[in-house]
C-alpha cells in the first residue's frame, strides 16, 4: 500500500515529454533535408540562366557570357579516367591480399590500421604529398627523380592515393561477403589459391567492388584542394591530349569563378556546379543500379 502511494506514474507528463522529444528528433532530421533543398535551389536559381550547350563547348573567357566549361569537363574526365585505371587494380589487389592471402598476423593488422588512419587524413595533405612526390619527384632529400610536372598523370596519382583507402575497404567487404563454401569447393577439386580467387571469389565480389569504386570516384571528382596543391591550372583554354598535359578540372574552375568579384562569374560558378552535380548524380545512380541488380541475383 505504502509503495503504491509513493510511486507516482505521472503518465501524462512522461508521454508529453516523449511526444515532444519525438518531434524534436524528426525536426532535426528534417532540418538536414531542408538545408540540402536550400543549397540545391540556391545553385539552381543562380546557375540555370547561363546553362546551355555553348557552356559545355566553350573555353574559359574574360567575358562571362562567352565563358564555358569545356576544358574543366574534359580535364576532369582525363584525371578521373586515369584515377580509375590506377586505383582499381591496386585497390582490388590490396583487398585480395588482406582478405585471401595474408594471415591474421601483426603485419596485416598494421596495414589495416594504416588504411583506416589514411582515410582520415585531410585531402590537402595528400595534395602536399602529390606535389612533392609526383609533380617534383623528390622526397625533400636524396636524388631528384624528376616528377611529372603539373600534369594529368600527377593529378591522377594523387587522387589514386587519396581514394585507395575507400576502394580497399569496399572491396574487402564484398570479398568477405563471398561464402567460404565456394572457396572450399574450389580447393576441394584441386584449384590453387589464385585459381580460386580469380575464377570464383572475384566474379562474385565484382559488383560490390564496382559499386564501391564508383562511389570512391565520385568523391575524387569533387576533390579540389589536392588538385590546387599539385598545380592544376585555373585558366586553361585547351583540352588535354595525353597524360603528360597540364589540365584544369571542374571543381578548380568553379573555385576560380567563385573567387571573382563580378556577379556574373558567380552565376557561372553556379552553372558549373549544376554540371558537376549532374555528373555526380549519374555516377551514384549507376552505383545504386549495380548494387540493386546484384541484390536481386543473390
Amino acid at each position, binding site marked *: 500500500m505504502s509503495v503504491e502511494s509513493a510511486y507516482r506514474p505521472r503518465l501524462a507528463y512522461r508521454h508529453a515529454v516523449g511526444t515532444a522529444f519525438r518531434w524534436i*528528433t524528426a525536426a532535426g532530421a528534417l532540418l*538536414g533535408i531542408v538545408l540540402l533543398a536550400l543549397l540545391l535551389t540556391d545553385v539552381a536559381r543562380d546557375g540555370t540562366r547561363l546553362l546551355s550547350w555553348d557552356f559545355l563547348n566553350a573555353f574559359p573567357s574574360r567575358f562571362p557570357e562567352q565563358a564555358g566549361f569545356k576544358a574543366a569537363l574534359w580535364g576532369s574526365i582525363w584525371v578521373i579516367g586515369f584515377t580509375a585505371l590506377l586505383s582499381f587494380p591496386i585497390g582490388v589487389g590490396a583487398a585480395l591480399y588482406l582478405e585471401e592471402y595474408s594471415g591474421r598476423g601483426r603485419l596485416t593488422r598494421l596495414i589495416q590500421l594504416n588504411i*583506416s588512419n589514411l582515410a*582520415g587524413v585531410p585531402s*590537402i595533405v595528400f595534395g602536399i*604529398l602529390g606535389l612533392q612526390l609526383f609533380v617534383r619527384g623528390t622526397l*625533400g632529400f636524396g636524388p631528384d627523380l624528376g616528377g611529372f610536372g603539373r600534369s594529368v598523370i600527377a593529378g591522377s596519382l594523387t587522387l589514386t592515393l587519396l581514394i585507395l583507402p575507400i576502394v580497399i575497404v569496399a572491396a574487402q567487404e564484398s570479398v568477405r561477403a563471398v561464402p567460404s563454401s565456394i572457396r572450399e569447393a574450389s580447393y576441394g577439386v584441386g584449384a590453387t589459391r589464385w585459381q580460386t580467387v580469380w575464377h570464383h571469389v572475384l566474379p562474385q565480389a565484382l559488383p560490390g567492388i564496382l559499386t564501391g569504386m564508383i562511389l570512391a570516384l565520385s568523391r575524387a571528382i569533387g576533390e579540389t*584542394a589536392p588538385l590546387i596543391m599539385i598545380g592544376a591550372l585555373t585558366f586553361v583554354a585547351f583540352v588535354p591530349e595525353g597524360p603528360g598535359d597540364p589540365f584544369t578540372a571542374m571543381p578548380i574552375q568553379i573555385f576560380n569563378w567563385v573567387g571573382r568579384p563580378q556577379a556574373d562569374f*558567380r552565376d557561372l560558378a553556379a552553372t558549373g556546379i549544376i554540371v558537376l552535380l549532374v555528373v555526380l548524380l549519374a555516377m551514384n545512380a549507376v552505383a545504386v543500379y549495380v548494387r540493386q541488380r546484384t541484390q536481386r541475383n543473390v
Partner: protein
Amino acid sequence: MAASANQVRFARNRRRHLIEQAIGGALFACASVTVVTTVGIVVILLGEGATFFQDVSVIEFLTNDRWTPLFASKNFGVLPLVSGTLLIAVGASLVALPIGTVSAVFLSEYASPHVRGVVKPVLEVLAGIPTVVYGYFALTFITPLLRDSFFPELGPFNAVSAIVVVGVMIIPMVSSLSDDAMRAVPVALREGAYGVGATRFEVVTRIVLPAALSGIVASYLLAISRAIGETMAVTIAAGATPHLTFNPLESVQTMTAYIVQVSLGDTPHGSLEYRTIFAVGATLFTMTLGMNIIARRVVGRFQETYE
C-alpha cells in the same frame, strides 16, 4: 613413360607454385602502397618541416601570436591559424553534433523502415556534395542571409558562414555513424526497459544512448577531425586574414586555407615562406591523426559488448 609423365606433372606443379608466389607478391605490393603513402606523408612533412625549423625556432612557431610569413616583417606564429581552425571546428560541432544526434535518434528509434530508407540516404547526400559547392553556398546564400537578418555589419568573408556550412557537411557523419551505433544495441535491452514500464523517451535516453555512447562519441571525434581538415569551404567563405580571435563574425584563416593560399600564389619553391606549408601541414596532420586515434581508442575501450 610413367616417370616422364610424373616429371611433366612435377614441372607443371613447380611452375604453378612459382606463379602463385609471384601473384602473392604482387598483391602484397598493392597492399604496401598504402603503407608507402603514410611513410611518404610523414617523411615529406618531417623532412621539409625540419628545414623550416632550422630557420624558425619551434618556440616561436608555437607561441608567437602573429602569422605574417608573406609580409615584409615576418612573423611565424602558428597560433592564429590554429585558432581559426579551432573556431571553425568548434563552431561546426555546435551545429552538427546536436542536429546529427537527434537525427540519429530519429532514424534509429522513431522512423519506420520505409522513412529511414529515404531519410538516411538523403542526409548522406550532404556528405557527398563537393566542398567547393559548400563554399559557394556560404558565400552567396548564408552570408547574405545572416547579414540581412542578424548581423548587418557582417563582411563578405567571415567565420560564421563557414561554420554553418562545415557544420551541415559533417551532419551525416554524426547521424549515420551514431545511427549504426544505436541500432547495434540489442532489442532485449529495450524490451527489458519497456517491460518495467518505461516510455520510449526513457528507453532512448536511459538505455539506448548510454549503451551506444562509445560509437556516438567516436562519430563526434571523426566529424570534428573532418571539420579540422576541411579546406575549400573555409578557403572560400572564411577569408584569408589570420587573426587570433574567437569572434565568428570576423574573417579568419585556417591552416588548410593558408596552405591553399601559398600554393595559389607565386611564392618561390624552396624559400622559407614556401616551406611554411610543410610546418603547417605537419601541425594539421598531427591534429587530425590524434583525433582519429583517440576516436578508435574510445570505441575500443568503452564499447559495451552484448552476447
